[in-house]
């Protein structure tokens, strides 16, 4: 297992500004969702990506058209980083007909196949074998696409991870497993739920190379992911990245945070990934007002998305009649 930290990388300022924008979009989107729940405007539950923005943003920046991802219950950030449509996302969260899934899916079931998102998943770990299957499809067709399988730390203890990892390894499939180690699976601390020092240590048991990276530093994430993606695309088989990160908010809307301390949260917040990138950009001589403007634009964009969603119609009940079985294969959007 290698460990990479804060390496200097050949990132252009334009790219870094893009990331800055994406991370703000993710954060603002999820802050807005948080508020909506607090106001009782959304039903169901949701899992916010706030604090973890550098992971999705940095990893997805390394992908090429045709690559795909599988996402998780904490999936808004992944879809936004992929360039997903925040209006359709917001509408989905509000259960509207204009949502990604016409309101059928909600927060945990957003997918955007057109951009390579094979789907968020309400079942912990369940996306991993699916990711492996997508990679198998690419490999069988001799395409050079690869799959990024996002997963939480907690999901690593599900049998699904195990079976997926082994399949990917023995068939040398183009999968990058990205473990978003945010220290907890709901209330279960990685310290209690694993008897190993680093989650990345688990990969060796499958013959999968692994790298641990500071998930609060988008440059490290990007660099690590780039190397992994390069190796995987060359046909060297799967790779596992453990991105060490933190979720600022409760696990879901109903979390009282009884299992961790305010102090701990505070300490991690001091390593905020957006602040980190902002400092870098400032060092590069970018005017702070320019950075504020970007943030402001994203605040606006999310507000517009919310407006769009609120103005959107509810789905009609009769849409359910034909919604269960596909009539033909593929995209029926």
């Amino acid at each position, binding site marked *: 297992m290698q460990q990479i930290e804060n390496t200097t990388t050949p990132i252009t300022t334009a790219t870094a500004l893009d990331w800055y924008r994406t991370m703000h979009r993710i954060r603002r989107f999820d802050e807005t969702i948080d508020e909506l729940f607090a106001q009782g405007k*959304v*039903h*169901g*539950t949701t899992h916010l990506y706030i604090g973890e923005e550098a992971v999705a943003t940095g990893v997805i920046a390394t992908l090429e058209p045709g690559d795909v991802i599988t996402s998780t219950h904490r999936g808004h950030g992944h879809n936004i980083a992929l360039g997903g449509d925040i209006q359709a996302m917001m509408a989905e969260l509000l*259960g*509207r007909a204009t*949502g990604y*899934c016409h*309101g*059928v*899916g*909600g927060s*945990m*079931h957003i997918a955007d196949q057109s951009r390579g998102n094979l789907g968020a*998943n*309400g*079942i*912990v*770990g369940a996306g991993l074998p699916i990711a492996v299957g997508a990679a198998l499809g690419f490999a069988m067709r001799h395409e050079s696409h690869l799959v990024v399988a996002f997963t939480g730390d*907690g*999901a690593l*203890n*599900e*049998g*699904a991870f195990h079976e997926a990892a082994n399949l990917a390894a023995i068939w040398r499939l183009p999968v990058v497993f990205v473990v978003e180690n945010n220290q907890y*699976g*709901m*209330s*279960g601390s990685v310290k*209690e*739920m694993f008897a190993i020092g680093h989650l990345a240590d688990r990969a060796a048991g499958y013959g999968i190379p692994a790298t641990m990276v500071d998930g609060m530093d988008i440059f490290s994430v990007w660099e690590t992911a780039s190397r992994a993606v390069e190796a995987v695309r060359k046909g060297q088989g799967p790779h596992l990245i453990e991105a060490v990160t933190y979720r600022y908010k409760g696990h879901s809307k*109903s*979390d*009282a945070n*009884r*299992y961790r301390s305010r102090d701990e949260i505070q300490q991690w917040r001091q390593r905020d990934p957006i602040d980190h990138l902002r400092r870098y950009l400032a060092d590069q001589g970018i005017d702070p007002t320019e950075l504020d403007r970007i943030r402001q634009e994203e605040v606006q964009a999310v507000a517009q998305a919310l407006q769009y969603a609120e103005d959107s119609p*509810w*789905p009609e*009940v009769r*849409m*359910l009649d034909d*919604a*269960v079985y596909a009539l033909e294969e593929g995209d029926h959007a």
Partner: protein
Amino acid sequence: MPEMTYAAAVRSAMEWEMAKDPRVFVMGEDIGVYGGAFGVTMGMVDRFGKDRVRDTPIAEEGIVGAGIGAALVGMRPIVEMQFSDFIMNAMDQVVNQAAKIHFMFGGRMSVPLVIRGPAGAGTGAAAQHSQSLEAWFHHVPGLKVVMPAFPDDARGLLLTAIRDPNPVLFYEHKLLYKIKGEVTESDEGVPLGRGLIRRYGTHATVVTYSLMVHRVLEAALQLEQKGWDVEVIDLRSLVPMDIPLVIESVKRTGRLAICHEAVGRGGIGGEIAARILESEAFDYLEAPLLRITGLNTPVPYSPPLESAFMPSVDRIAQSLATWLVHEGVSA
């Protein structure tokens, strides 16, 4: 008698047995300090410690299997599925192991294991967190299945389930957790396999269980306004199932309706219908069967869709009324 919520009643049964019987313990995801996703185990870890109120990794197959193993060496585990849907990850352990061990090994072993957790829709949790899967398990010989509708039954049936030498699936409906009722905190369990007539009536028998008991009773009040009097049976446990009670009732009313939240196709309504159709009650049947059930779709997220999925009081009342009118039952 103290009033308590359904969730508190479930907790009360667990605490009662744990205080009494050192073999009893609970394990599951986030049941300790977190108190469980629905707060059912809240505070229990403070009273009984982390050993007996055991937080587990996210590994349903592992923890159900561990429950079986612990049961085989003389413990009486209660395993919580955070959402009952997640039991799919443990299906082999539940069905190929727990349910069959007693039979398969010639009666030499038994698996006193309770698997409990929240079932059902209505909270906007969407397709993978809202299912009612009891039909699967009532099809599996060796399992018992319990689905109480009221706090007192929740407590009494859970006491009995914990004491049962067989694996018992105990489903709590999410929307019931907050309802309140009077509950005696006694040592007396409610026997499995005894339904209850929650309301007497003459025009039809409506068989139901879990959350739908409440909705059917409300619908029955609406019908009463219109002059119809339906009898409402709360099955309480599905395996064993109190079919004699249903037969008796149908013989009196001549009409059978069944209401459950689970998907209609292949739901438990079919089994109930078949049991009646093959019984002596057949000769008393004056009307076709009426099933009022969840739609034949996964559970959708959006509030109007999710509401449409579940039988509502209005849908139940309207379906019953239409049926009774069609059958020429004068109100």
